[in-house]
């Protein structure tokens, strides 16, 4: 997979995750996939209800097998056409019995640049240091419920 070659760009600090990929598609195409709610829903595996618009919340149920009962809410922060799109959400908020609304959010940022043969996309999720410690530990419980595929990916990043 092409992502492997990008591994050096994965940061290891405790506050942020950064990914950079070059997509063989024009910038306008990538932009539409990121900010058109229907297109975002398709690749992200969510069913967003309503449009993605600056300053507005947008929510929807996940369409991952086994996680269809989870509603995710994204608060759209900033949209700079064909360049930058950001939203806030509660990472790993997968327990429907828990009210995450009072907890700090993380910021997810997508940035687009021209690149040879396509479009460079940088995805940054930051603010993990503000997430309560108990919640960070809770992720291990989610793991126990069977993120087998994720663990395979994980193996690429741990020695």
């Amino acid at each position: 997979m092409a992502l492997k070659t990008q591994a050096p760009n994965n940061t290891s600090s405790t506050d942020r995750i950064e990914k950079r990929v070059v997509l063989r598609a024009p910038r306008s195409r990538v932009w539409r996939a990121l900010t058109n709610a229907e297109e975002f829903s398709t690749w992200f595996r969510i069913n967003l209800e309503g449009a993605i618009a600056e300053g507005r919340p947008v929510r929807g149920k996940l369409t991952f097998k086994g996680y269809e009962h989870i509603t995710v809410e994204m608060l759209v922060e900033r949209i700079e056409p064909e360049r930058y799109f950001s939203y806030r959400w509660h990472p790993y908020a997968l327990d429907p019995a828990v009210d995450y609304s009072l907890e700090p959010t993380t910021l997810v940022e997508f940035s687009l640049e021209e690149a040879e043969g396509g479009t460079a996309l940088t995805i940054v999720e930051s603010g993990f240091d503000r997430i309560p410690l108990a919640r960070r530990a809770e992720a291990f419980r989610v793991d126990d419920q069977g993120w087998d595929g994720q663990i395979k990916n994980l193996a690429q990043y741990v020695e």
Partner: protein
Amino acid sequence: MSSSRSAVSLKLPDAVPLFAALGDATRLRLLGRLSAGGPLSITRLSEGTGVTRQAITRHLYALDDVGLVRHVRRGRERVWDLNRERLDRAKRYLDQISAQWDDAAERLRAFVEEPE
């Protein structure tokens, strides 16, 4: 835990004290110093911190309790070092979310690179 398989299946009751021990600025700084230049003596670890040796010792034992550091005798001195295997597990929370973004990016790639 020695095998990667058992390390991955860290259970919640095990993870809570680990993160609690990390939730302190002095302890995080101690881990940073050990990470950059360990093993180190308590005297060296206290230097420039403005924290007493006694307090540093207490913090080191708190980290020791959850297995983040360990100490060995070196001559007449006791020196402290990181327990890297344990730290790797604390890192795994971000690794999981990181892996989800890898998956999402791959799905986005498939989505935008396919002919419309």
